[in-house]
């Protein structure tokens, strides 16, 4: 490396590194970002298969039941639309999870439309409502990009 050009070389290296990082991030984001679906979104856009997504809505009253193993639960998520999503989850649901309350779950759809949740998110408090169901934020849309 010529003495004079060292600063230029370093600058180019730094730019290349950051550009490389941005390109890598963009390509990884395409595959790895989990998009958010409400039941109405699924009805409109079809099932997002083969990728991890989040669903959100309200746990339908009376829909929660347990399998005989005691650790697998089934429930139905609804929103204001007439549509709903059936969910299966194996694990300990967070403390705030109950019927007629808001829920956000992460996982994948099966071809038949059953959502296999790998995680039920616990990061909200007892006042949490998904944006669609919250009258105060009624205009907030949760559109999905992954079409």
């Amino acid at each position, binding site marked *: *490396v010529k*003495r004079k050009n*060292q*600063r230029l070389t*370093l600058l180019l*290296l*730094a730019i290349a*590194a*950051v550009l*490389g*990082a*941005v390109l*890598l*991030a*963009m390509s*990884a*984001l395409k595959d*790895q*970002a*989990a*998009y*958010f679906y409400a039941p109405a979104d699924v009805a409109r856009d079809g099932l997002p298969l083969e990728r*991890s997504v*989040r669903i959100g809505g309200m746990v339908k009253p009376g829909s929660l039941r*347990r399998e005989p*193993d*005691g*650790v697998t639960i089934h429930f139905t998520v609804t929103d204001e639309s007439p549509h709903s999503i059936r969910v299966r989850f*194996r*694990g*300990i*649901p967070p*403390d*705030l999870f109950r019927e007629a309350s808001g829920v956000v779950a*992460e996982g994948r759809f099966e071809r038949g439309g059953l959502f296999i949740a790998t995680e039920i998110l*616990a*990061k*909200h*408090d*007892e006042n*949490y409502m998904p*944006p669609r169901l919250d009258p105060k934020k009624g205009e907030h*849309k*949760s*559109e*999905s*990009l992954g079409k």
Partner: protein
Amino acid sequence: MIAEAGLAALWLAAALSLLQLFGGIAALRGEGEGMARLVRPLAIVQAGLVALAFLLLIQLFLRTDLSVALVAANSHSMKPWLYKFAGAWGNHEGSMLLWVTVLAVAGAAVALFERRLPERTLIATLAAQAAIGLGFYAFLLFASNPFERLSPVPIDGQGLNPLLQDPGLAFHPPTLYFGYVGISVAFSFAVGALVTRDVGPAFARAMRPWVLAAWVFLTLGITAGSYWAYYELGWGGWWFWDPVENASLMPWLAATALLHSVTVLATRDGLRAWTIMLAVVAFSMSMVGTFLVRSGILTSVHAFAVDPQRGTFILVLLALYIGGALTLFGLRVGTVKEGSTFEPVSREGALVVNNLLLCVILALVFIGTIYPLITEALGYKLSIGPPYFNLVTGPIALALVIAMATGPLLRWRRDRLKEVARRLAVPILIVAAALLALLLLAPGMRLLPLFGLMLALGVGAASLAPLWKRNLRRTPLFIWGMAISHLGIAVSLAGMACEAAFSRELLVAARPGETARVGPYAIRFDAADPIAGPNWTAIEAKLTVSRGGGEPFVLRPQARMFNSPPTETSEAAIATRLDGQLYTVIGKGDGAGRWQLRLWWKPFVTLIWFGGGLVALGGILALIGRLRRERRPRLEEAWA
């Protein structure tokens, strides 16, 4: 009265800070002889006033003075003493006051103890500090006044979020704030040096202890936060790539890069503009970190307040600070002369590789953290979680670890690849042996944990190599510091790889009397009984645990219900052994006599935090070594 006195102290401190800024500018322009002599005392008095305001706020919390809105909203007369105390900063306003207190105290420390810098550079540094502080004073006084009164006075307070009612709260946030603020002090030094065109080794030596100290605090804060989340949240995970965790990781990455480049500047007078740029980036990241946590833009445990007005305020501050820093850098970088140069294969070269890789990881984490916020503002929601972060940062982190093993074995300025390879022979052999052993003993390991464990062993060996054949008693402390920090990274990496590869998990619904097995343990579920604490009730499981022929012991995980605010939390019961942790959680009952139990055996998981502790210890040793050495400036710096 206490609240009014606190508010008055805060206003006074803000006024002094304004005076410090304009006094500093006047002094630099050569107007007003007295101004130059005023700047140091101003910084000291200002710190005293803010500290007073902060102590008064703590006093209000200890007394549970419910006529103060902040106390009423966040405290409760029945709360244990420690949480009344720590609750003073377990909320938005209090934590911002803590921020500004730490900043002012750091400014006073610079004013009191910094003797190496030319007077003009020091004044410019203190003026820059005042400029940063002013924004936060404005934010406190106009948008989040911690001393606001409440009328009528409520009968009792609303209590503190139970997840925050933990000894960790007393420790975790202040540690991170010390780190953020330390970086802003380092940045003020960079501004001072840019303004007075004084970028060189002397400036680097003055800045280095602050970068080191900030980095130690960030390391401790991240390590403690990770362990806290691990045992308090009851999900068995130690890092969730939550935006708030990223908010502390990003400044750490930038500070790590800065720490290494400032060493090149101090020792070899190279990488001048580069170091200044990293100081700007590190400061920006600590501001972004504060913004992410404080704006209420995130829905998580950490986002105490959801208030768009505050968010806008901080966003404007952020734009002003980062924009100002970049503008100053752009205007003045032309005046920074190029430092001494070096060959690609050299210690400097390895440190440049370290800096580049750290910046790449930083960019990847930054994009992953910010992208969902941007898309949400545009109207659609998505989440970016561990799949993205692990995929993109994992391989680069491993490459970085290789650079870390190699760098300390290179000579400054110029070295030969052949000799480097010879010095690395033993670590390379260890890596090869580890690969062979892992392929034979643990077939089917996933790639990332496999490489992680393998490299951890080699890097562990390589990190001790700089101590090899030295007279250990005469080895300077900062060499020890470097070796121990690097070893800590290897130890932590080994813990992460073991946790990822060898954890065993069991989820069952059990009746009292039944026994479950996980890893080497047999766990008998004896009973689930209700118990009561000071401000909660709980279901407590009694688990009798035995391993092989060893003495059985009892674990008691709890599912707690707090009274105010009514919230349920899981208290995991954890048994720590030399070779790992048994982690037990009790879930819900099914009403028919069965209880959900979640059990993990996590081999060597404790190495993750032990390694983090070693990294911080290395930083502390290096800091002590540097400070001691710089008191005897005639001693030549042969090594760094």
